[in-house]
Each structure stands twice: as C-alpha cells, then as structure tokens.
C-alpha cells in the first residue's frame, strides 16, 4: 500500500496544503523549520491521534485536521481526522469507487470505547497496524528511532513479522488449557494443581465403589416382575449357547494354530530336504527364515493396522495380567483406606474449649466461695470435686482417643506397606514395559489389554511365527540337520514327527476339512445365538438388555462396534471416567501441537527477518557486520568477529541507527502482504558517517524500488542526487504555505530543483 497524498487542511503551520507522493523513493526536502517533521508526524497523528495536540494546532485557530489517502491493490483508503475532537472518518473504496468499508466516529489516542475498538480493528485489517508505538517501531524512523526491546512491543512485532495474530493463538491455547484444568488437576507442563477436579472426583468415587476396573456388565434384574417364563427360558438358552460358543471358539482357534504350525513344519521339512541335497550346510536355514520373516511381516502389518504397536514381545499377556492384578490390588486398597479415614474422622475430639470454660467457671466459683462468709467449706469442696471429676473424664477420654488412633495408625501402616509393595511391583512392571518399548501408563496398558484381548488369535500366530524365526528356538530345519541322537525330548510333537511329504499333505488336508466343518458348525451356532438375542431384544426393551445384546452382537463384528458396545455396558461413572480420559488426552495433544506450530511459524519468519536484516546491515556497514539476531523479545544482537554475539547497546549511535534502519527495511520487505505502509525516514542519516551514508542511500534507493519510501531531509546534496536519480521531490521552502502547490505533472518535483 502506498501513501498517495497527505492533505493538511489545518495542521501545524500548514493550511489547505496537499503533498502528493509517488511509488518509489520520495524526497521531502527543505531547510530547518520548513515543516518536514510536521508532515511526517501528520501520518501517525491522523491514523492514531496524538497526545501532543499543542504541537500541531495552528495558533489562533480552532481547527486542526488532516487527511491521508492510501492506495493499495484494487482499493483506496481515505482517513480524515479532526485532531481537536478526534472525530475520524475512514472510507475504503474499491476500483469502481464503491465503498467497501467505512467508519465514522470518535477514536481518541488512548480511547477504549467500542467505537475506538471498531476503528482499530478496521485499521488492523486495512494496514496491518493499529498501534502508534508499533507504527513508530516499524514504519517510522526519526531522530530517535524507537527501539524494539520491550515485552509488549515484542509480542506485537512478532505478530507483525509472522503476519498472524499471535495473541489470538495464545487465546486458543488459554482456552484449551482452561478446559484441561477444569477436567483434571494433573499438569503435564508444570506442577499439578492443588484442588481435585472432576476426573479425580470420578476416580475417587469409582475406587470407593471398588469399581475401578474396566467395564462393569449390567445385569438383568433377576426379580423383574415383567420377565415371564419364556423370556427366562430364552435367556437360559442364550447363556448356554454363549458358553458353548466360547468353548468352541477357543477350540477353533487352537485348531487354526495347530494347522498353521503343522503347515509351517511341513514347509520347513520340504525346504530342508531340498537344501540338504543342493546347497551348502550354512545356507540351509536361510529360505526358512526368509519365508518365516515374510509371514512375520504380514502378521506384524495386520497387528499394526489393528492398532497394536509393532514388535510386541511374547511376555505381553503376562505383563498385562500383572498390570491388571496390580491395579486390582491398588483399587482394593482404596476401600480400607477410605474406611480407615472415616473411622479416624469419627473418633470423638476432646472438647478443650468447653473444658477450659468450665475450669474458668470453677475457679471463679472457688474465688467467690473463698471470699463470701457462708458455706465456704462445702462450696470449696464441691468445686474441688467437680474439678477432679472433670479432669478424670478428660483424661479417660484422651486415653481412649489415643488408643483408637494408635490402632488406626497400625492399620494404616499395614495398608501403606501393602500399597508400597504394590507400587513397587508397579514400578518394576513399568521398568519392564519401558525396557520392552511398551507404554507404561495405566491408561495405555488398559487400552493395550483391550486390543490384545480383541486380537489375541492374531497375536498368538505372530508370536508362534516369531518363535520359529528366533535362532534360539529349535526349528524344523535344525532338527533335520541334527543327528538322531541329539534330538531333544522337549521339542514339540509336530517337530518330532517329521512326516514324509505325501503323508504330511494328506494329514494337512484332513485337518483342514475338519476345521472347515467345525467353522461351519460354529457359524450356525452364532447365527442361532444372534436369532435368539433378537427375539429377546424384541421381548425386552429395557436399555440394560439392549446394551447386553449389543455387546454380544458387536463381539461378532469389528473392534469399533465392540468398543461402542463395551462402553454401553459400563456404569455411568466408568463411562464418564473414560470420556474424561479421552478428552484430557486430546486436549493435551492439541495444546502441544498448537504451541509447537505457533513456535515453528514464528521462528521460521524470524529467521527470514534475521537473514534479510543481516544482509542489509552488512551492506550499510560495508561487510564489517553481516549477521543480526533477534531474540524472543525482539532485542537485536550483532555478530562480532564471526562468532561472538554482542547486544546492540554496546555499539555507537551510528551503528544502532544503521541496525534499526536495516531491521525496518527488512521488515517491510519480509512483510509484503499488500497491507504494509511506506517507510518514512525523517532525517535518518544524521549519525552516519559519509561512507555509511552513501551505502545507506544506495540501499534505500534499492529498497524503494518494490514499494514506497518517503525520505525527509534538509541535506541539499540529497537534492542533487534526487535530480540525478529521478526521485520524486517535494520541496519545502521554509515560508508558511497556504495553498496547494501547482501539481504540474509527475515531474513537478524535479523541475523545481532544476
């Protein structure tokens, strides 16, 4: 976006004065007090308002207003401000002069009203900057350039560099974290929160119910008056059929494993015999291994596709069973702990306050009795007896309390001991899991257990295939290679009975036929079970029964359906716990992903800015310094001697000016998103020596080629150069300007110099 003109209706020393600019380099040249800085300052004053109205308000006049005209790709923006009232009119028009967006209202410099916010949002949208400090730090370079090292500014600069509203992403992160900490006190990014949240409460309730383990099947009410005899009979039949099916499924799986093993052995035998005749002894096992590893790979792929981690060790079922056992132990310990806590709370306290008051009363009575003339002795005796009785009662009560507390302490100690043992076992188990590359958290292990239960058959096949591939295990090939006397009595039966090819093939065929018959029978029974379940469902519409049937039906289907069915049979608390766990895991992942993405995005843009600024700074300093680094607070450092980084404060004023100029130019180049404003340089070279001045001017000239750059200067040498380089020149002669100058075409500025 370029600044096409500034119209100073009544601003500083100008009245009805218009300054036109062009794309490329513009030079506003004039002696001191000619109004260069006033024109430069008009831009932020109109855009954002000002705190220094007295500086711009014309003397003796009650008007102070100016307008800016910006021209962008396919649209123009006009901003007009009355600085006395801070009334702003902003109009954005497209190429056909149709109004795209507009604002008209009050927008003071430090305003916080709704209209002010609306105006700033529009500015942000149109020119990318809605903050005066940010404008001065990026598009404006005066005698005292705004440095970049401030927390608030750094955030805005980072946002500007990356072209994104980083604050918005921080807000998303905040909402995610807030949601996370509403669910659980556990904090993976720091210390845990103090107060228990919903997840911990649910866990506590579950452990009090002794219900911490997995899904809890919901049983049909036995004494349900609605259930008639036929339904009971149906249920009995289903139950019997289900048991039968479970048994037969196991048998079928065994049969499958046996046939698979048999087939492998037969293949191994065949291979071994062939190899015995043809190849070297050292190469005999290789084909077997290759085939076996091929089977392994297929099985491993299937397991991975089923959601199981790759290369599961054969000890996994044992580990999972141990983990479940430990969890049960720990859950079982929760109940005695809760009971013990309840008992401890119920132990009556000694009412020390009441006793203290009574004692004070007795002392007061004794004092009164002592000083009054009648019944002194009986009264004093009564007070003494009461005091002794009170003290005896207190002592008895305290002793009792101590006894009960001691007993509780002993019980707690025993429970702690048991808990310690379980935790020790859990720690050992975690170590074993870690060593085997398995997840060690309880949640992961429960999930893994569910998956293992679902895909047990596949896993068994995988492990048996892996075992045959393991060089430590005796394979068929090795059996053949061995002498008969060296054969081990513990080898599998199949390996012992190495059959001839034909016999083996015949036996395999028979086994497969048997297994196929068995499978057909199994399918018939499963269909029958399903039919019965449908009958039962149509008879009973209670949600519990439906859920049970859903589980059974789902057990015939895929893992997702099974999971849904398992969920539907859980108790509401358990279900809530699982939902919370899922949500917490998703929230944690989301937070980590977003934080990483924002970080990477900012870093990548910062790297680009560093490189660009370093290049420009190198050109200005004639290659003396060529590397600039911005830290996370956007504070620049310069690389010295090719290795050491020195903060910018360590350098001379001229170098500091050069670095901030390089950074502004680099930012304008990096952030070329069509919303950038022109760079305004108000006498930026006063601290530069001749050599750097010449190089900087070359750089400024180059930088202006892609956009617009407005240079304000009193240096007449620059005027000469402007004439040579055909820069657009706006001359100011130092007299008060009252009228719009003759806009004699685009060469007017240069003609003035000529």
């Amino acid at each position, binding site marked *: 976006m370029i600044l096409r003109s500034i119209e100073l209706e009544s601003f500083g020393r100008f009245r009805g004065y218009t300054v036109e600019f062009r794309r490329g380099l513009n030079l506003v040249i004039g002696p001191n007090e000619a109004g260069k800085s006033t024109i430069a300052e008009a831009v932020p004053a109109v855009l954002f308002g000002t705190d220094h109205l007295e500086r711009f308000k014309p003397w003796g006049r009650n008007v102070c207003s100016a307008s800016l005209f910006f021209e962008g790709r396919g649209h123009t923006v006009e901003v007009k401000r009355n600085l006395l009232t801070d009334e702003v009119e902003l109009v954005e028009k497209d190429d056909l002069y149709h109004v795209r967006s507009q604002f008209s209202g009050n927008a003071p410099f430090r305003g916080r009203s709704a209209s002010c916010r609306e105006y700033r949002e529009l500015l942000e949208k149109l020119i990318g900057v809605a903050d005066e400090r940010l404008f001065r730090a990026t598009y404006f370079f005066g005698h005292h350039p705004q440095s970049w090292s401030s927390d608030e500014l750094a955030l805005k600069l980072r946002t500007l560099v*990356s*072209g*994104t*509203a980083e604050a*918005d*992403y921080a*807000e*998303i992160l905040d*909402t*995610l974290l807030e949601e996370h900490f509403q669910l659980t006190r556990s904090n993976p990014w720091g210390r845990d929160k103090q107060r228990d949240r919903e997840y911990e409460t649910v866990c506590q309730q579950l452990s009090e119910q002794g219900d911490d383990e997995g899904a809890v099947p919901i049983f049909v009410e036995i004494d349900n008056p609605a259930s008639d005899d036929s339904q009971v009979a149906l249920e009995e039949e289903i139950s019997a059929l289900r048991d039968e099916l479970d048994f037969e499924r196991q048998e079928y799986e065994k049969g499958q494993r046996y046939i698979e093993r048999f087939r492998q052995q037969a293949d191994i035998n065949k291979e071994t015999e062939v190899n015995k005749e043809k190849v070297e002894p050292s190469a005999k096992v290789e084909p077997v291994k290759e085939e076996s590893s091929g089977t392994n790979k297929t099985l491993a792929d299937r397991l*991975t*596709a*089923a*959601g*199981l*981690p*790759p290369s599961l060790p054969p000890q996994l079922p044992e580990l999972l069973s141990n983990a479940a056992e430990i969890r049960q132990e720990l859950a079982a310990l929760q109940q005695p702990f809760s009971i013990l806590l309840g008992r401890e709370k119920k132990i009556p306290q000694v009412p020390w306050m009441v006793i203290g008051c009574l004692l004070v009363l007795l002392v007061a009575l004794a004092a009164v009795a002592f000083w009054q003339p009648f019944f002194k002795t009986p009264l004093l005796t009564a007070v003494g007896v009461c005091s002794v009785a009170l003290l005896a009662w207190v002592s008895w009560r305290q002793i009792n309390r101590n006894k009960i507390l001691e007993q509780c302490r002993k019980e707690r100690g025993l429970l702690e001991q048991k808990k310690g043992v379980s935790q020790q076992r859990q720690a050992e188990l975690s170590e074993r899991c870690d060593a085997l590359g398995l997840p060690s958290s309880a949640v992961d292990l429960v*999930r893994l257990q569910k*998956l293992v239960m679902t895909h047990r058959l596949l896993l068994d096949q995988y492990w048996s295939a892996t075992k045959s591939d393991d060089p430590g295990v005796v394979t068929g090939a090795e059996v053949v290679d061995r002498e008969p006397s060296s054969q081990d009595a513990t080898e599998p039966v199949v390996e012992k009975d190495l059959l001839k090819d034909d016999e083996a093939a015949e036996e395999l065929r028979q086994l497969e036929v048997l297994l196929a018959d068995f499978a057909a029978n199994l399918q018939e029974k499963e269909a029958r079970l399903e039919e019965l379940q449908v009958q039962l469902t149509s008879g009973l519409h209670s949600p519990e029964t439906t859920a049970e049937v859903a589980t059974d039906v789902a057990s015939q289907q895929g893992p*997702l359906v099974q999971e849904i069915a398992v969920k539907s049979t859980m108790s509401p608390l358990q279900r809530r716990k699982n939902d919370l766990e*899922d949500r917490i*895991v*998703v*929230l944690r*992942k*989301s937070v980590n*992903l*977003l934080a*990483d*993405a*924002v970080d*990477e*995005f900012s870093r*990548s843009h910062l790297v680009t800015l560093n490189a660009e600024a370093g290049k420009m700074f190198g050109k200005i300093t004639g290659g003396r310094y060529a590397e600039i680094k911005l830290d996370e607070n956007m504070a620049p450092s310069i690389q010295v001697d090719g290795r050491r980084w020195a903060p910018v404060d360590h350098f001379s004023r001229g170098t500091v000016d050069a670095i901030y100029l390089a950074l502004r130019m680099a930012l304008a180049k990096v952030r070329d998103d069509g919303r950038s404003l022109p760079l305004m340089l108000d006498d930026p070279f006063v601290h530069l020596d001749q050599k750097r001045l010449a190089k900087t001017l070359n750089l400024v000239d180059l930088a202006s080629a892609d956009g617009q750059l407005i240079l304000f200067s009193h240096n007449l040498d620059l005027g000469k150069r402007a004439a040579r380089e055909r820069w657009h020149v706006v001359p100011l002669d130092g007299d008060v300007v009252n009228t719009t100058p003759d806009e004699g075409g685009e060469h007017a500025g240069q003609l003035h110099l000529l």
Partner: protein
Amino acid sequence: MTRLLGSAHIETLAREESVRGVLVRTVIKQSEFADEQELQLLEDALQLLLKRFQAMDGEAS
C-alpha cells in the same frame, strides 16, 4: 471409515502459509509414523483445533 487426514480440505489447509498450515503439516507428518490409536488421537486433536480456529475467524470477521 472416512478419515479427516488425507481429505482434500486438509490438503488445502496444509498448503497455507499460516499457523494453521504449519499445524496441519505437523499432524500429517506425525501421522505417517502413527499407529491406529495415535492416528485417532491426532485426528481428534486436529479437529478440535480447527474448530477453535474457525471460531476465532468467525469472531474476527
């Protein structure tokens, strides 16, 4: 089952030069080495974040 990852919408988002683009690219990269469970988690997280982005855009516009 239709996957969010691998959809045309996600591929379009991955080409964006924005935080959202970086996020989607990161998720796609991580999903290449993820098992089924991890993949599901990545999809859920991405879906949640995209909804928040959408809400943010809605508020901004």
